[in-house]
C-alpha cells in the first residue's frame, strides 16, 4: 500500500507533519458505544497471563524480575513475548514480561539502591564502568549544584527535582514511524543536520551533536524492529502495522529512558484512519480492530521502570504515565472523536480498570453527545480516566494536535517539548515570611532580608510583604537548580530516541510547579479575616498558631479567599517568568503535586490555617480536606478561579464523589457528570480527575487487597492501583473530601 495513493494527500507528503495527515483523513464518529466488541479469546488468554504475572509482582515486593547484567537500550534485549502465538501486537521492554531493566544514565546510585533493596547488585563490569568511567546526569548535577540549592533541596523547599532520575515528560511523535517509516525520518534528519552550520556557538555545536545522536537512534530503532521481524524502515501498510509501528516507536523510548512520565501522546484517532480504511476495504472486522487496541493497551500496561523505594514517596504506586489523550476538536471545529477513541476506552472493560495508560479526555463543550455520555459512564464505572479542557488549551495555543505530558501539561506533538521541574513548597515559603527567612523546622537561614514579625497577632500586609520577598528568593534558587538539571540531562542522558521523532528545533517550556496552594490561601485568609497568633519557641520559630474567629476557606466559591489563591499563583508565576532559562525555554508553572502532597506535609511545620505540623497537603490545586463544605460545585468553582494564563503547565484538581450523589439512576448519574464537566470547563478550568467510589470499597480493599487487584483510583493527574499505595497514602486518600450529600 502506497500511503500517498491511499489517503488524501497534502502537506504531510512533503514534510514530516502527522497533524496534516490526521486533519485531512480523520473520520469523526458521532454515534454511541453500541458498536464495540468484547475481547477475543487470544486477548483474554494473554491478559490472564499478565494478571498472573502482576500477582507475582505484587507478592514479590513489586519486582517480578530484573536484569542485572545488561544496560537497557533499543537493541539490548532479545525479543520478548507474553505468548507469541496469541500476540497480534508484539514487543516488550526486555526479553521477559514484567522484567525490569537498568537505565543508569540518569543516576547510577539510584539503580544500585533499587537493586540493593531487593538484595541484588549490578553485574561487576557494569559496576566498574559506572563507578569509574561513565558519568551520569546525577553526577553532573551535583558537580554544579551550589550550597544554597542543596540546602533548599534537603530541607524540603524544593522536592522531587529530577536530579537523580530521568526527567521524562518529553513526548516523541510516535505516529511518525507508522506514517513515514524510519528511512524517511532519517533522510529528513540528515537534511536538517546539513543545514546546521557555523559559526559554531555552544548552541549550534550542541544541536549538531544532538541530531547526530537522533540519527543513530533511528538506525537502532530499525534494528530493534528487526529483532521482532518487523521492517520499520518503511511505512505501515495496514491497520495492524500502524498500531505495531506506533507501539515500536514508543517501545524504543521506554527501552532507552525511564523518565518519570513517558506519555504516549494522542495516537487513537491517527490509528483510526488506518483501521477505518481496512474496515472499509473489508480486510478486518470490528473484532480485529478491538483486538489490536486491546493488545496495544495491554502492552502499555506492562511498561515498567526500575525504581527505588524513596521514589514511591513522590510518585506512589509505580506509575509510568503512559498518558494517551483522546478527543478534543480540530481548529476547523470538527470533532476528533473517532471509533478508535471509543475502542481505547473499551479496553477498561475488555481488560478491566487500570491506571495505565493514563487515559485523558480532551473535553470540549462540542464533543458529540454519544462520546460525552460514554466517558461519563466509564468514569462512573472505573474511576480510571481524567479530563482536560480542550476548548481552553486549543484556543489559547491555537493548536489541535497535542498530547498531555505526564498529568496535566499540554504539549504540541512533534513540535514542542518541556523540561520537567517538579515543584516548590509554597506553604514552607509562607512560613519563611513569618520566621524572618528561617526554616521553621531547623532555624536554618534560607532567605535574607525578611524582618522579624514581633506583633502578637499577624498583620496581613506585613506577612504579604515578607511573603513576596520569600517567593522572589525561592523562585531564584528554584530557577538555578532547574537550569543545572536540564543542562546536565541533555549532556548525560539525552532523549535521542524520542527527540528523533520531534522536529529538530522544537519549542521548549520549562515546567515549574507549586505545592500547598490551598494551605497558603487558607492561611492568608485566616490572617486577614480572623486573628492569628503565632506560638513561637525559644528561638522565635513558629511551632503552632492560635486562630480566633472564623475565616473563609478555599473550596467554597468564596471570592474573599479564592482571589487570594488566584493572586498568589499569579505572583509566583511572575517571579519565575523574570528569570533566564537554559536553552531559552519559556517559563510555565503548574499547580500539581502528584502524590508528593503527603511528603510535603511531613516536611512542613504547623501553618496559620490551623493545619498541624506534618499533616498532608491537599493534592494539586484541591481545597484542603474537609474544608469545602458547600458541595462539589462550590469546590470546583474555587479551583476554576485560578487563571490558566498564570499556570499554563496545568492546574490539577481531583474530585471524589460517591455514586449516589451523582443522581438517583444510572442515566441521571451520567447526565449529571456530563453537566458537571461542561460546567467546570465552561468556567475555564483546566483539569479534573474524577473518582466515583464509596469509601467502604476503599476500606475493604485496604483489608483485602487480594480481592481488589485492579481497583483504580485517580490521585493527582494520574491513577494508581489503590492496593499498591502505601498504608499512609491510602489513609490520606481516605481523608480527602468524598462528596456524598444527597
Amino acid at each position: 500500500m502506497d500511503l500517498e495513493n491511499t489517503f488524501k494527500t497534502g502537506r504531510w507528503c512533503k514534510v514530516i507533519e502527522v497533524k496534516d495527515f490526521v486533519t485531512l483523513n480523520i473520520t469523526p464518529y458521532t454515534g454511541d458505544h453500541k458498536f464495540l466488541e468484547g475481547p477475543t479469546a487470544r486477548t483474554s488468554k494473554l491478559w490472564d497471563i499478565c494478571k498472573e504475572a502482576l500477582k507475582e509482582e505484587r507478592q514479590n515486593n513489586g519486582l517480578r524480575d530484573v536484569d542485572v547484567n545488561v544496560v537497557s537500550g533499543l537493541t539490548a534485549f532479545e525479543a520478548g513475548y507474553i505468548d507469541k502465538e496469541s500476540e497480534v501486537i508484539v514487543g516488550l521492554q526486555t526479553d521477559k514480561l514484567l522484567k525490569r531493566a537498568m537505565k543508569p544514565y540518569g543516576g547510577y546510585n539510584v539503580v544500585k539502591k533499587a537493586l540493593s533493596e531487593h538484595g541484588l547488585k549490578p553485574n561487576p563490569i557494569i559496576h566498574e564502568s559506572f563507578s569509574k568511567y561513565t558519568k551520569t546526569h546525577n553526577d553532573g548535577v551535583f558537580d554544579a549544584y551550589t550550597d544554597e540549592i542543596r540546602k533548599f533541596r534537603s530541607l524540603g523547599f524544593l522536592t522531587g527535582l529530577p536530579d537523580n532520575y530521568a526527567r521524562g515528560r518529553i513526548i516523541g511523535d510516535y505516529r511518525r514511524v507508522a506514517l513515514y517509516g524510519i528511512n524517511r525520518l532519517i533522510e529528513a534528519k540528515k537534511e536538517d543536520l546539513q543545514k546546521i552550520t557555523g559559526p559554531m556557538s555552544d548552541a549550534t555545536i550542541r544541536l549538531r551533536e544532538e541530531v547526530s545522536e537522533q540519527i543513530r537512534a533511528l538506525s537502532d530503532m530499525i534494528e530493534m524492529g528487526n529483532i521482532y521481524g518487523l521492517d520499520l524502515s518503511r511505512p505501515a501498510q495496514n491497520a495492524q502495522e500502524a498500531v505495531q509501528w506506533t507501539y515500536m516507536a514508543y517501545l524504543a523510548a521506554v527501552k532507552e529512558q525511564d523518565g518519570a512520565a513517558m506519555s504516549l501522546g494522542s495516537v487513537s484517532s491517527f490509528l483510526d484512519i488506518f483501521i477505518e480504511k481496512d474496515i472499509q476495504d473489508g480486510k478486518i472486522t470490528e473484532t480485529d480492530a478491538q483486538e489490536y487496541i486491546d493488545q496495544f493497551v495491554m502492552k502499555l500496561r506492562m511498561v515498567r521502570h526500575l525504581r527505588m523505594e524513596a521514589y514511591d514517596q513522590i510518585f506512589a504506586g509505580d506509575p509510568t504515565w503512559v498518558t494517551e489523550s483522546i478527543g478534543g476538536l480540530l481548529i476547523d471545529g470538527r470533532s476528533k472523536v473517532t471509533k478508535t477513541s471509543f475502542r481505547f476506552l473499551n479496553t477498561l472493560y475488555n481488560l478491566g480498570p487500570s491506571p495505565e495508560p493514563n487515559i485523558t479526555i480532551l473535553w470540549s463543550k462540542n464533543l458529540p453527545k454519544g462520546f460525552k455520555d460514554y466517558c461519563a459512564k466509564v468514569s462512573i464505572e472505573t474511576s480510571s480516566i481524567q479530563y482536560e479542557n480542550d476548548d481552553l488549551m486549543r484556543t489559547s495555543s491555537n493548536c489541535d494536535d497535542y498530547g498531555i505530558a505526564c498529568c496535566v501539561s499540554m504539549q504540541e506533538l512533534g513540535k514542542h517539548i518541556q523540561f520537567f521541574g517538579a515543584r516548590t513548597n509554597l506553604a514552607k515559603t509562607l512560613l519563611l515570611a513569618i520566621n524572618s527567612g528561617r526554616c521553621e523546622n531547623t532555624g536554618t537561614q534560607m532567605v535574607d532580608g525578611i524582618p522579624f514579625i514581633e506583633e502578637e497577632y499577624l498583620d496581613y500586609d506585613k506577612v504579604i510583604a515578607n511573603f513576596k520577598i520569600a517567593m522572589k528568593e525561592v523562585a531564584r534558587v528554584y530557577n538555578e537548580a532547574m537550569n543545572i538539571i536540564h543542562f546536565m540531562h541533555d549532556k548525560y542522558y539525552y532523549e535521542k530516541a524520542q527527540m528523533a521523532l520531534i522536529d529538530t528545533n522544537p519549542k521548549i517550556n520549562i515546567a515549574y510547579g507549586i505545592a500547598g496552594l490551598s494551605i497558603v490561601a487558607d492561611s492568608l485568609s485566616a490572617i486577614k479575616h480572623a486573628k492569628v497568633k503565632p506560638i513561637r519557641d525559644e528561638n522565635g520559630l513558629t511551632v503552632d498558631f492560635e486562630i480566633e474567629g472564623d475565616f473563609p476557606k478555599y473550596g467554597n466559591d468564596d471570592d474573599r479567599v479564592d482571589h487570594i489563591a488566584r493572586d498568589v499563583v499569579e505572583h509566583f508565576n511572575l517571579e519565575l517568568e523574570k528569570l533566564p532559562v537554559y536553552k531559552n525555554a519559556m517559563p510555565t508553572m503548574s499547580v500539581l503535586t502528584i502524590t508528593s502532597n503527603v511528603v510535603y506535609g511531613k516536611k512542613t511545620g504547623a501553618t496559620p490555617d490551623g493545619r498541624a505540623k506534618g499533616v498532608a497537603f491537599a493534592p494539586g490545586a484541591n481545597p484542603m480536606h474537609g474544608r469545602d463544605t458547600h458541595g462539589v460545585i462550590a469546590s470546583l468553582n474555587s479551583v476554576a478561579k485560578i487563571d490558566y494564563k498564570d499556570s499554563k503547565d496545568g492546574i490539577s484538581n481531583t474530585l471524589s464523589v460517591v455514586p449516589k450523589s451523582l443522581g438517583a439512576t444510572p442515566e441521571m448519574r451520567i447526565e449529571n457528570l456530563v453537566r458537571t464537566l461542561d460546567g467546570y470547563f465552561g468556567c475555564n478550568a483546566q483539569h479534573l480527575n474524577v473518582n466515583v467510589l464509596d469509601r467502604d470499597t476503599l476500606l475493604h480493599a485496604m483489608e483485602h487487597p487480594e480481592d481488589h487487584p485492579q481497583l483504580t483510583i485517580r490521585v493527582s493527574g494520574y491513577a494508581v492501583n489503590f492496593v499498591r499505595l502505601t498504608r499512609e497514602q491510602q489513609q490520606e486518600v481516605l481523608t480527602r473530601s468524598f462528596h456524598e450529600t444527597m
Partner: protein
Amino acid sequence: MPAGLNCWHAFVLNSMSSTENKLIVHSIESFGTHDGPGIRLVVFLQGCNLQCKYCQNADTIALKGGTPTEMESLVKRAVNMKTYFGDDGGVTVSGGEPMLQSKVLIPFFEALKKEGIHTNIDTNGLIRIPEAKQLISELSDLVMFDVKATTEEGFKTITGAKGLGRLLENIQLREQSKKPYWLRYVLVPDYTDSEESLRWLIETFSGNKYLEKLEILPYHKLGIYKWESLGMDYQFKEIKENTPEQIERAFEMLKPHFKDVIVK
C-alpha cells in the same frame, strides 16, 4: 394547637418584618442532584413549622440558629453555577420550611428570574400567607409539595399538627395557576403505604393537569444520628425500612395514573 405554633408564627412575622434581604440559612449544597431537575444549588433554610417524626434534617427544625445570609450573595452563588445548570438545573430552596421566609424569597426569586435561573421550592405546603401564595401561584418555576399523609389524623401523627386541608388548598392554587409542580410522598410502612392511602392519592391527584411528577420516597432512617446528636427522641425507631416488594407494589399501583412516577 401544637406547642411550637405560636413560636413559628412569631418567626414568620419576624422574618416578614425584616427590612434586610437576608435569608436564615442552615446550609448550602451546590451539587443538589436529588431536589428537583438537573444540577441544583440547594439552599436549606433554617426553621420549620412541623416536626415530622422521620425528619432527615432534624437540625433544620429549630426556629433559632442558622446563618443570616445576604440574598445577593446567594444570587451570586447561583450565577456562578450557570454553566453547570444545562437546560433544567437551577436553584431549590428547601429546609426546614422555606415558605416561612417567603417575604425574602420573593426578591430572591425575582433576582434569579432576572438572571434566567430556574427556581424551585421544596415545601410542606402549609403556609398560606400572601407572600407564600404569590410564590406558589406566580414566582416559582416549580414547586415540590410534600404530601405527608392522606388523612388529617395521619397527618397529625406524622407531623405533629393537622394541615392536610391547607396543603390541598395550596396544591389547588398551583394547579389553577397552570404551572408545573411535583408531589413527593414518603412511603412509611404501616403509616402511609396502605392500599387505601395510595388509592386516595390516585383519586385526589390523578386528574391534575399540571402535576408533572410523583416521587415516591422510600422510608429510611439516615437522619437518626441528627436526632440523637440534638438530644431529641426519634419516635419512629421501630419502623422498618420498606422491603423492595413494598416499594414495587406501590410503584405499580401508582404508575398508570400519573404522567411520571419515580422511586428515589
